[in-house]
Each structure stands twice: as C-alpha cells, then as structure tokens.
C-alpha cells in the first residue's frame, strides 16, 4: 500500500509552493497516496481481466454507491485516528438514526425533512457525549465508545421493538439522498462533496493543522497553546454527524432499517482508514488516503461477487488487505532516512 518512501509524501503534501513541476504532481497525490492508488489500480486491472462485468460504467458507479457510506463515515474516523482517538459507536449511531427518523415519520407524523436535521444534530450530540467523557474525564476513547456502541444499539432495539422500520411515505428525500443525477448515484455525489470539504479542512485550515499536532505530539500541541481537548471533542462531533449522515443515506436507499443495521460497520470504517495509510499512532493520514482505502475495500468486495466467490471469503479477503496494508505501513515508518525531504 504505502511504500518505503511514504513519509516523503507527507512532506511534499505540505508544500504550498512546489519548487519543480514534478513536485506539483506529488502535491495532489502524495507518494503515500500514490502507493495506495497503485494498489487500487492493480486490483482493478486484475479484476478487469478476470471478469467482463467489472470494467463497466454501471458496475463502477455501483461500486461508488456502495462505498459512499463507509467513505463518508471514515472521514470522521480519520480525523479521530490522526488525533489518537477512536470511535467504535459510529455503526450503532448509523443504525439508530435510521430507526429514530423512521419512527418520527411513521408514528409521530413528522415530515422527513424535519426528522433529518434532528437526527444529524443527534449524531453530533452523541459525539459531544463521547468527546466530553474522553477528554474531560480522561477515559480512553476505546472504552467510552465501546459503551456508547452498546447503549445506542440497545436504544435501537428498544425503540423499534426489535422490528425493522420500513415503508416511509414517498418523498423527494429518497431522490436527494439515494437517487440518481444524470446517471450518477446521489450517494456518490454526497461522498465527493463531503470528502472534498473534509480534505480541505484537514490539509489547509488551522483546525486541520491542530488535528495533526494533537495526534503527533499532544504535549507539544498543548504547550504551544493548541486547545487539544476542544480539537478532540470537535472530531468526535464530526464523526457523530457523519455517522448520522451515513444512516440517513441508508434509510433513503433501502427504505427499511433493521434494528441491527450498522452492526460491525465501525470495523469496516476503521479498516478503510487504516488501508488508506492513516497510522494508528496518530499524527499522519489524509482524506484522499481514506477514500482510496474505502475504494480498495469496495472493489475487492465487488470483484469477489462478480467472480462468484462465496461471501464467506469476502471477510477473509478484506482481512488480508488490512494485514498487508498495516504491515507495509509499519515497515515503511521504521526507516527514519525516508523521512527526509
């Protein structure tokens, strides 16, 4: 995934004024991302040879539709992991907001367009809750969000009575979040929009700089006046918001939400982030990498389906990709010589 020179990419990604035309190309696609992109390309080439149905516009668009929720939710996880935090509750949030929005419409007669902003704010409040416990009380994020994972899943089961929430009345809501615009899936467009904004914020704004500093050296960040608690709480709120956004997309796409919706989704999301080159040690990573990581997972899944390979193999295949990605990442970061510009 990320070759031995991956840290050079980090340096070149920070160049505002590339000194050579060659460097300007690396600025858009850093060397770390270039490695992941090469892996994605390789998988795509292999699949195009193996299956006549892979390299078809409709299939590729479908892949982007399938990866959209994971990629969108992985944005929040990228911010968190760069700052050395974790959120295991995103899968439960994703499921619960579908249940809440559905029940608001079906049982209480609330308009779906009123329910959507409410559940998006709810997701941010979940993030605020997680972030406050993590930063103010000092409980590791892994533990706190493991707790909220269960609480929110329990809430989904209680509220739904264990039954799926289905068949919302027709609304343009379905078109906006899961329709097609000139043949392009709405989810894909949302993904492009959200990832573009999130990528800009992370790479170019003061807040993004502070996210990197908070994960890279928390003590240094604090000493230099960065409000690291505030940064981390905002990260949790972004993650909660985007988890809700994923839940809204899922509701629009399927028009049915089982109370178990999103179970285990947090692991797919963390996988996408890790395959995308974000180090669990904090301080490095990018939204482009996360996008490529989510794309690799979606393409591998799609390929296995097209090749008629049993779904049981899919889990193992994704797991292999993760192990290979992390191994390459650790090996590459062991070479301090590679960190020079």
């Amino acid at each position, binding site marked *: 995934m990320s070759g031995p020179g991956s*840290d050079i990419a*980090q*340096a*070149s990604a*920070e*160049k*505002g*004024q590339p000194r050579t035309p060659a460097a300007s190309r690396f600025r858009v696609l850093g060397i770390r991302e270039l490695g992941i992109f090469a892996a994605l390309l390789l998988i795509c080439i292999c699949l195009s040879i193996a299956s006549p149905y892979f390299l078809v516009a409709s299939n590729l668009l479908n892949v982007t539709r399938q990866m959209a929720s994971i990629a969108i939710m992985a944005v929040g996880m990228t911010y968190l992991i760069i700052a050395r935090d974790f959120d295991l509750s995103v899968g439960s949030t994703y499921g619960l907001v579908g249940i809440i929005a559905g029940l608001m419409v079906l049982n209480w007669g609330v308009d779906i367009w009123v329910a959507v902003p409410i559940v998006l704010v709810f997701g941010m409040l979940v993030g605020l809750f997680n972030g406050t416990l993590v930063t103010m009380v000092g409980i590791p994020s892994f533990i706190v969000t493991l707790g909220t994972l269960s609480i929110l899943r329990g809430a989904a089961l209680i509220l739904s009575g264990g039954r799926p929430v289905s068949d919302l009345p027709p609304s343009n809501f379905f078109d906006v979040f899961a329709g097609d615009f000139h043949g392009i899936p709405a989810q894909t467009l949302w993904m492009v929009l959200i990832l573009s904004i999130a990528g800009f914020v992370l790479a*170019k*704004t*003061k807040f*993004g*700089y*502070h996210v*990197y*500093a908070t994960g*890279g*050296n928390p*003590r*240094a*960040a*604090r*000493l*230099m*006046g*960065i409000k690291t608690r505030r940064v981390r709480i905002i990260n949790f709120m972004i993650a909660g918001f985007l988890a809700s956004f994923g839940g809204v997309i899922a509701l629009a796409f399927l028009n049915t939400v089982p109370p178990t919706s999103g179970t285990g989704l947090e692991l797919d999301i963390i996988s996408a982030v890790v395959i995308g080159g974000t180090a669990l040690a904090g*301080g*490095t990573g990018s939204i482009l990498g996360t996008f490529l990581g989510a794309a690799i997972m979606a393409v591998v899944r799609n390929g296995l389906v097209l090749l008629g390979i049993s779904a049981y193999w899919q889990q193992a295949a994704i797991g292999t990709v993760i192990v290979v990605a992390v191994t390459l990442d650790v090996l590459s970061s062991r070479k*301090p*010589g*590679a*960190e*020079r*510009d």
Partner: protein
Amino acid sequence: MALAVEPVAAGHGAVTPKIDEALLEVRGVTKVFGHVQALRGVNFSVRPGEVMALVGDNGAGKSTLIKVIAGAHRPTAGELLLDGRPVTFPTPSAATDAGIATVYQDLALVDQRSVAANLFLGREPTRGIRVDHKRMVADAEEVLKRVRIRIPSVHALVGGLSGGQRQAVAIGRTMAQNSRIVILDEPTAALGVEQQQFVLELILQLKSEGKAVILISHNIGQVLSVSDRITVMRGGREVGVRVKTETTSDEIVKLIVGVQP
C-alpha cells in the same frame, strides 16, 4: 501653546531603552506543592541582550522557577514584573503572548510535521479560513537563515532531523514567536560535542538580537563560556548572582553545594 507642547511630547515619546533595566524581574516568589516548599522567596532578573544562567543542584528549584516564569505554575506568593509592570500568566500561552518563549528539554516538536509547521505550531498565519502556507514558508525560511543551520528544507519532516537541527527548530520557534525572553532548559544535555557548540552559538545569536536569555544548565564550563551573569539556586532560593568575568567555576560550584568560599 500648541507649539510649546509638541517638542515636549516628542521628547517623551522617544524613550531610550535602558540596558540596565531588567526586562523580567521575579520578586520574592514562593511556590508550595502540598507539604513541599519548592520556592522560598526567589529573586531573579534578566536584562535585554543578556544571557542569564540559572544553575543549582537537582531539587534546588530551577525547574519550578522556570515553570512560574513560563506560566506553567502560578506562584503561591510574590510577583513577576515585565518591563517593571506586574504580570500574571494563567497559562503557558499567556506567557508566550507576553513574549516569553520556552524551549523545553524534550523540545515539544511534532515529528510527523514539517519544519515550517513546527515553527508556527499553534500560531499558524491564516488568510481567510486557510492557513497562509506561502507566508508560513517564507517566514520559516527567514527564521532558518537567522539560526544559520543547514536544514534541507522547511518542508522536511522534523522527525528526520538530527538532534542539533531539532534544537535549532525549537530555538527558531522562539524567534518566529518574536519573543523577547527565551528560556532554554538544558539545551545541550542530549547533544554531541559539535552540536553543543552549535547551540551555544545560537544562544549568542539570540543575545545579539537583544533578547533576554535564561539558560538552565548543569554544565558549568558552558555556562561560564556563554552567559553574562549566573544566578545560583539552592534550597528554593537564590544564593548568589555573579557576573561571569568576576567569578570562577570553583566559586559557582561552592555556591551550588553550599560550601563557604
């Protein structure tokens, strides 16, 4: 009337800085942690363009005093004066904003980030909502010129730099912050001989720029070579202030351990 007033006002406006005046003064500061009295009424001062060494055995209160000056600890009693005016620093960034920068022993650098990002850590220049990367890079290059060290590029990751280069980035950051007082906590402790020499030159560079430098060090030889005055601490108070040219390493060591000269 107006004619008479103007020259007088002009005369008041052009205040010539007095080199003898302390830039920072610590008066009778005490600090108590539970049952431990770390500082017992310390007096300390430093002037612009002066290197003031702060020496003393472990537990003499050097670190506590420095943390009080840097805003990391609030004094239990006593006062800090900056330009003769009493000041309080509730946080380290309040001290930084007042022009007091600290180079911590661990340097407080983010290894995964570039030299430029580290020089402006926490105070990145912005244009609109973006970080003004162009300006940051230009300013960083300016700072690197002042520290006169060979760093491959301001885009280089700090994690890939040598110990001396990292020290230069940390000291360069105090220049980027335009601080008037620079506190250096054991800046040469972890360095090789050549790099130690380089850091001592950097300290003289800070001095020549008119900054007040507070240098904490265990190395009496280095202290005597680079500083103008030396404050010796023992048991939570200052036990002597010596001018470099009027003292010997023997006298300093005796003051540190408390033997009557």
